């Protein structure tokens, strides 16, 4: 009798790339819903559009590269890229901004480097940084969270705004947008006010703006789910959060009037989603345990430095991209000790007879 001969192991594989990406998507749901709760339909419209664009661009370029389209789409990675991009941009971002950002993310940052697994930079963050530096006005238009605003856009109005890039009549941007906590802190400190004066404003909750705190909590929930399912490991998220909190705490203790508290830093902006969902993108991150800690800590430190002394209110995307550059070197320098060897290991070429 004849049999098939395939390589070991002779078991059903434990994981698949598509399955891993699906878990990430599931984990993004609570945070996304929380964001939609506070910022309205725009969040969901953004996610849907960005995901559709991402999948369409992925299909087109995979076809152009003469690779199997359905197999590649089955890895679900384009969906995650689109989704993360959509969460980074303001909820009423015009459709053409999303289109440009996603095109850059999928075509340039991902496929020109060889596609999934070969991109040195996080594609979603490349796309976001491109639109952030190209369209600073659009990227600054964060609406006030609905709980604090008496105006609320319906789904139809939101779609109209996103598609046309202009608000429905009788509304203007000044009325519906407001500085994010990071903007407020940055501008306040820039104009010589103290931290306590700035946070005395009613928009602030216990650490940061309460809506941002809640969003952070829900992304944290998703992140813990990924940890629990062992889709990600603890090293990067913990290192990012400590990487922000420790230097922030140090300066805050030195001068609490001029420096925001570590809790404010962690629960404002994109630190939580960045720590659990963006910095943990395996392709562009470090892969060794120690390398992951250094990589995450570097991201955290850069976030604090850019927020405090740099030109942008938030810095997760820049910090991630800067550390992406260092990841291969970190991997090389932080190789774990091999079983049966000392940390330095025997000279290469030894170890076999």
């Amino acid at each position, binding site marked *: 009798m004849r049999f098939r001969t395939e390589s070991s192991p002779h078991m059903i594989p434990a994981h698949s790339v598509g399955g891993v990406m699906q878990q990430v998507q599931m984990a993004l749901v609570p945070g996304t819903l929380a964001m939609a709760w506070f910022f309205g339909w725009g969040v969901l419209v953004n996610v849907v559009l960005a995901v559709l664009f991402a999948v369409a661009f992925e299909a087109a370029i995979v076809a152009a590269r003469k690779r199997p389209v359905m197999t590649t789409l089955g890895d679900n990675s384009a969906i995650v890229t689109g989704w993360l991009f959509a969460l980074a941009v303001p909820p009423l971002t015009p459709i053409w901004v999303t289109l440009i950002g996603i095109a850059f993310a999928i075509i340039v940052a991902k496929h020109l480097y060889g596609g999934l697994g070969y991109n040195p930079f996080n594609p979603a963050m490349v796309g976001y940084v491109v639109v952030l530096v190209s369209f600073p006005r659009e990227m600054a238009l964060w609406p006030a969270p609905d709980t604090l605003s008496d105006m609320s856009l319906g789904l139809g109005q939101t779609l109209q705004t996103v598609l046309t890039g202009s608000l429905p009549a009788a509304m203007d941007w000044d009325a519906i947008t407001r500085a994010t906590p990071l903007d407020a802190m940055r501008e306040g400190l820039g104009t010589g006010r103290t931290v306590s004066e700035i946070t005395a404003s009613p928009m602030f909750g216990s650490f940061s703006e309460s809506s941002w705190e809640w969003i952070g909590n829900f992304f944290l929930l998703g992140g813990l789910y990924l940890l629990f399912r062992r889709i990600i490991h603890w090293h990067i998220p913990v290192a990012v959060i400590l990487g922000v909190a420790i230097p922030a705490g140090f300066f805050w203790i030195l001068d609490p009037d001029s420096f925001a508290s570590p809790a404010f830093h962690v629960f404002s902006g994109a630190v939580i989603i960045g720590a659990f969902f963006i910095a943990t993108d395996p392709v562009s991150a470090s892969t060794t345990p120690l390398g992951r800690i250094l990589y995450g800590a570097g991201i955290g430190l850069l976030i604090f430095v850019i927020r405090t002394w740099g030109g942008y209110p938030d810095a997760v995307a820049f910090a991630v991209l800067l550390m992406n550059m260092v990841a291969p070197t970190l991997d090389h320098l932080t190789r774990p000790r*091999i079983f049966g060897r000392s940390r330095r290991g025997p000279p290469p070429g030894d170890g076999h007879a």
Partner: protein
Amino acid sequence: MQLHRFHGGLKLADETAASTRDPVLVMGVPSQLIVPLGQHIGEAAEPCVAVGDHVTKGQRIGQSKGYIAAHVHAPSSGEVVEIAPHAVPHPSGLSAPCIVIQTDGQDDWGDNRMEPWLDWDTRDPRRLRQRIRDAGIVGLGGAAFPTAVKLNPRAGQRIHTLIVNGAECEPYISADDMLLRTAPEAVFEGIRIVAHLLRVDRVLFAVEDNMPEAMRSLTENLPGELRDLVQLVSVPSLYPTGGERQLIKVLTGQEVPSGGLPADLGMVCNNPGTFKSVCDAVIQGRPLLSRIVTVTGPGVQHSRNVEALLGTPFADVIAATGGYAEGVDRLVMGGPMMGFAVHDDAIPVIKGTNCLLATRPQDTPPPGPLMPCIRCGECAAVCPAQLLPQQLYWQAKAKDFDAIQDYGLFDCIECGCCAHVCPSNIPLVQYYRYAKNEIWAREKERQKSDIARERYEFRQERIEREEREKAERLAKKKAAVKKKEGEEGGDSDKQAAIQAALERSRARKAARAGGATGDDKSESADTAPTDTENDAGAARSGESHSTDTESR
């Protein structure tokens, strides 16, 4: 006892319930036995019988050559009908020399049985080791390394700890489990012999915690006089605890040095089946002729353990348990993690055949589409050798054989944990095997070219030396000739005078003959002596040329 843990590993579902329900089935003698000459690590044996010979049970039919090698014996009596290449259990699927015996059903030992040594404890360790070598015993855990070699520590190396590796960590395999349940006395007797041979201080007998019956059987049957020596240890079932290096780490916390052996730590590790074979060889004079094989998997009708003669075709073994199940399409020798799929079931059971695992497409589907590595690092998280499999993969793909060795390729034990967790369906272990083979091939090639280069350089040097010597001889001769000429200086002056006189008279004749043509001729005649001198010089150099030719 304080246990330790190794990095990574996998918690795999235990699939041994089905194959441990029934007692071990002792198979009869099949009509034909196909006995491969290379069933072990090391050099294959050489046949020492001829086609047409009648062989008795236990007769040596393959003589080992070399140190790392093992003899092969006739598992039953009969006639040698063929000595030829035949498909054997090997991942390559290639054929290798086998001795085919048409059995006579007598199972007759003849006079070939070795003398039973009931008084083995009075024997010299060297003789015991020789008996183990004569019995063709190899490690029965699957790797089939010659046991006599393992039990022969290098000079100055003292073995203080003997480890019995009952950590049968591959899912599905229960051959050791069943052996420990049914024949604990023989295993303990083998342990006594080996402990005596090596003069060890302690024996650590490890059994995985998912083999409670085996543990109970061992506890109940541990002889009183071994209680001080042997310590039964239940180890957590985690794949690959049964790996020698991993088990030693779990039991002692020590790591076998990279590139080294357990003996470097004063330890020797063997499978329980090996100890039983040692007991059989020493006490009964029975060489290694059969072994327990687990026949299991969703691809067979009935899972159970079988004691089969070496050389029994897989098909016969599976038929003896009840045959295949509907839709079977893969037959694996060994466990699901490290075993290899065979293409045919006409190939025979060998010393390393611990398990035959049959599966259907729904149990082991063809691998999904190969996806790119996303560097998730799951492979590194499970690697028991603490390697970075994803980096090794890139380096193997890039054929960067220096970097891959720097990253510890040869510390890889090919356990398959990385490939099992890889979400991209990358056959990682295949890449490492490829890289290892490539490096070995290059090493061989390099050695060959080193030899060739040395030969060339030697030849080149010899030619140069000969040239040099020749030149020296020549110079000496020349000097000798010159010296001689210097001594004959008077003669040559006379000759020159004669020569000059001859030339002068010749010139006069010529002048007379062509007087009408003018004075220019006589002028040329005046130059003649100079020419003549040159001729004489040429003649001398011609002479030295001929000397040179003679010297050749």
